[in-house]
Every structure is written in C-alpha cells, then in structure tokens.
C-alpha cells in the first residue's frame, strides 16, 4: 500500500466510526456482520495472498472461534471481552498443531489437509453434543458485561465498535507483519519456496507461524460472530464457508489485506440483493466470480488502486 492511500483508509475508518449516527439499526446489523466477515477474509489473505498457502478449510478457524467464545460465554460467565480474545488465542494454539500437520505437505495436498481438518472439526461439532450442542448448536449466547466499564460493548452499537476496533487492530497487526522481515520471507515462499529454502530459511516454521496467526485472527472473527448472532452452529465449520471466504479474498483482491475486507462486504451485499430477486443467487454470484477471475484477477481493490494510480500518472503527465 502506498503512502497516498493512508489518508483514504483513515477517512474510511472515521466514516465507519460515525456510521451508527446515520444508519438505521437494520443496516447496522448488516454492517457489523460485514466487518466480522471482512476480518475473517483478511485473516485468510495472510495465507492465501501473502504466502500462497491455499486453505480449503479456513472455516475451521471461524467455527472453532465461534464455538469457543460461545461455550465460554454460556458456561463460564466470562465477560465478553475475555471470552472473545480467549477464543481467538485458543484457535491460534490449535492452529499450531493443524499447521504443523498440514505443512508436512505442499500444494494441493496442503489444501486437502486443511479441508480434512475443517471437516474433522465439523464432524466433532455434530458428535460432541455435551459441549457443542450437536446439530442444534449453541443458542442463546449472552454478551456478558465485563469489569472495567466494558459493559458498554454489550449493546448493539457498543458491540459494533468492538468489532470495528478488532478489525482495525487486526489490520494494523497484519500490515506490520507483511512489511516486516518475516513478511519478506513469506513473499519469498510465495514466489519461490525452493529458493527460499536454499537461502537457508526453514520455510516450514514460517508457514506454521503464518497459519497460527491467520487462524487466530479467523478465530477472532468467529469469536465475535457467536455473541453477535447469539448462536454458533455446525454451518460455521462447513466447507461451504471455506469456499465462500476464498471467493471473498479473490474477488476483493488477494495479497492486499484491504481487498478481502471489501470482498467480504461485496459478497454480503450481493447475497442480500441477489437473493431478494432470485433463489438461485449463488448461480449469479458464481458468474460474477468467474468474471473477476477472468477479467480482473487483481480484484476490486486492485481495480480501484490501479485506476487511482493511472489518474495520478495522467495528471502528472498532463498539460
């Protein structure tokens, strides 16, 4: 991201911070969900966009985070903030194990292993009824108010600000990460892993680390979703969601962090609009997805920034 885009992003964050004063409650609900999904898609971008680790099972992170925070809120009386961050941390720790196993393979086999682990968790969510509620899931998840005056976060608007703060914080973390020496190695793995190994990097450690961070942030998104929706169910671990989040990343523009957030918002908007016209909305969204892959592989953010840069060039070279 060039320095010229920084003011733009600050403006966007300010607009989002002011949104509750202008938008009706219904729109706030949609916006909150879009930000949660945006966080989820951005977390996958660390793996998919920056490291070329294609995960077919990122729903594992989302679902695990959702079930963990839901369970903590339902059964331990833990305050909202602790439950959410505790669940994200737990997801990250579990992901070290998942990452360790999946990185035994590369390429398509890696992707299949991520899918396998997600499906494993999906199966567990059905069978481990005493904890997960089986096919009913966890319902009636409360937003338990916490100490230190964090009670304000449990209201509808307060929760929106919690989500926004998590998204902005996670974005800054990812941004620092991809521009650090660690991020340079990730790009090396993306462009030529064999060469990265030959330079003396233990690439597997880097891959496990990025999987852990991506899952922890994906888990954070899920951990926010459970108290947002008030429930957690098996769909949050289903492969369909893994596919949808990949689509959000690609349509938004992979390897940009901002793009996948836009992709998630675009996906939600399309789902909302198209499904009010037709039941076969997924078919039409599929066509849109194909069009993006064929004609705009750089995604929404790539198109937008490309246009900006062209404009600046034209102005610079103009009369």
């Amino acid at each position, binding site marked *: 991201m060039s320095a010229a885009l920084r003011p733009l992003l600050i403006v966007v964050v300010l607009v989002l911070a002011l949104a509750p004063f202008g938008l009706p409650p219904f729109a706030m609900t949609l916006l909150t969900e879009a930000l949660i999904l945006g966080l989820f898609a951005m977390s996958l971008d660390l793996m998919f966009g920056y490291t070329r680790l294609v995960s077919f099972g990122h729903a594992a992170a989302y679902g695990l985070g959702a079930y963990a925070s839901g369970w903590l809120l339902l059964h331990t009386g833990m305050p909202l903030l602790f439950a959410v961050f505790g669940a994200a941390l737990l997801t990250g720790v579990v992901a070290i194990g998942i990452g360790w196993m999946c990185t035994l393979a590369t390429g398509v086999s890696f992707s299949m292993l991520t899918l396998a682990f997600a499906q494993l968790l999906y199966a567990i969510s059905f069978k481990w009824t005493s904890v997960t509620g089986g096919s009913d899931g966890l319902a009636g998840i409360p937003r338990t108010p916490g100490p230190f005056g964090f009670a304000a976060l449990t209201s509808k608007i307060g929760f929106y600000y919690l989500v926004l703060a998590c998204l902005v914080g996670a974005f800054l973390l990812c941004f620092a990460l991809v521009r650090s020496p660690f991020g340079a190695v990730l790009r090396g793995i993306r*462009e030529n892993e064999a060469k990265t190994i030959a330079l003396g990097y233990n690439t597997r450690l880097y891959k496990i680390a990025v999987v852990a961070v991506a899952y922890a942030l994906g888990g954070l998104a899920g951990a926010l979703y459970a108290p947002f929706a008030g429930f957690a169910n098996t769909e949050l671990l289903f492969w369909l969601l893994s596919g949808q989040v990949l689509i959000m990343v690609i349509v938004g523009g992979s390897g940009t962090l901002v793009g996948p957030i836009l992709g998630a918002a675009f996906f939600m908007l399309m789902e909302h609009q198209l499904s009010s016209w037709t039941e076969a909305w997924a078919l039409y969204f599929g066509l849109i997805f194909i069009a993006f892959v064929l004609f705009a592989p750089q995604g929404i953010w790539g198109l937008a920034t490309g246009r900006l840069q062209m404009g600046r060039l034209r102005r610079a070279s103009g009369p």
Partner: protein
Amino acid sequence: MHRAPDVALLDLDGVTRRYGALVALDQVAMRVEEGEVRAVIGPNGAGKTTLFNVITGTVKPTAGLIRFADQAITGLPSHQICRLGISRTFQITALFPEMSARENARLAAQARHPRRWQPFAGARIFKEAQALADAALEQLGLSGIADRPAGLLSHGDQRLLEVAMAMAQQPRVLLLDEPTQGLSVEETAQAVDTLARFLQASRMTVLLVEHDMEVVFRLAHRITVLHRGAVIADGAPDEVKADARVQDAYLGGLD
C-alpha cells in the same frame, strides 16, 4: 596467516549416492582449499549437479563423509548447511521474479541475520541486510539495475543476480552451478568477464560446475573431472587438458 596446505575448507571422502541400480556418485574424494576456484567438469549425467545437491544437503549421500571447515556436515538439513557458510546458485535460474533485485539480495542477506526472528528488530534487520545486499550487487556490477523486478532483467543479469544473492550471505564457499547456462555467446562473454573480475577481487572459495570449457579454463585454478559419478582426473587446467582419460571421456570412448 596461511592455513596449512593439507587442511581443506571443503573435504569430501568416499561420497557415494545411488539411485537404485544407478550410481550417480561413486566414491568421490575431493579437497577444496580456501581461496581456490575449483571447477567440476564432466559429460552430461556425470553427477555434477548431484555432487552439489549432496554438499548442500538437498540430497543425502548413500555413503561417505563431507567435512566443511573441520566439521562433519554429512546428512545435515540444507538450511543448516547453508547457515554454516555454503551458498549456491542453481543451474536453472531461481529468483523471486516480482521482487526487485535489491529485495532479492536483501532477502538472501536476511537469512544470515542473527536477529531475524526478533519481533521488533525489523527496521534494523532490513537496514543491515540491505547494506550487505547493496555491496554484493555492486561487486557483480548490478547496482544500476537494482531497482528493477528480477523477472524483467536480462538473462545474463539474472544469472549474476543469483551470484550476488549468494554473496550477500557472506558465504565461505560459493557453489556455482553452470552460471552461464542458457546465455548467448555475447552474454556469456560479458558474464564471464564480470565473474572473473569479481573472483579476482574477492578471493572467494568457489566450486564451479560448468559445461563451457572456455569458461572453465578462464576461471578455474584447478579442475576435477567426473565421469559416471567417479573422479577420473584432478589437477591444474593444463594437466587436465592433456589427460588422455579426460579426452576419452569427452569423446565417449571410455567404458
């Protein structure tokens, strides 16, 4: 201070690598002294690249011992061997095409930085790695094109960039696998000029695999000849040139 002449920096003893019935390396013994430019030559399939792979740990030897700076490195994982000070280039150009030449070399240097895992040392790591990278690019005459994406450089510059990346790691031994592979005659002449100048100035210890005999005789102090995985000659360029077995091997008469 000179090292005792019998102490080699890189010392191979009885190194063998079999693939089923095929013997890719057959009891290879070889000693490379510090500051020496050693060429390994031989017909196609003689085991030259396998030799590199065995030294750098990407392929484990079936038998034999490899010592580097008085330390056994046989069977160590390749990133550890690399960290001890052995850097290599590849027969087929291997770069990060979307990164600039500077970023390529910086990533190479970063691999040796003692603080590379520290979370808040980023700016310092980048700065120090970039200094090493820029020095290496300068040595190979690439400063002028350092900001271009590596994938857009001419083939000759890409080959030199690989050498610069290896040098940015401040290795003790540099392994060059056919540095002029795929270059046109003019490109080869230019690249060899640059390499010759660089080798003379840096006094690097180099192990060089090369097909082009002119390049070999121009750059190497000493030549080892491999044929069907075994060393059949070892000596100064003139001795090797005159060796009857070598001539037979290249004419295909040796059985």
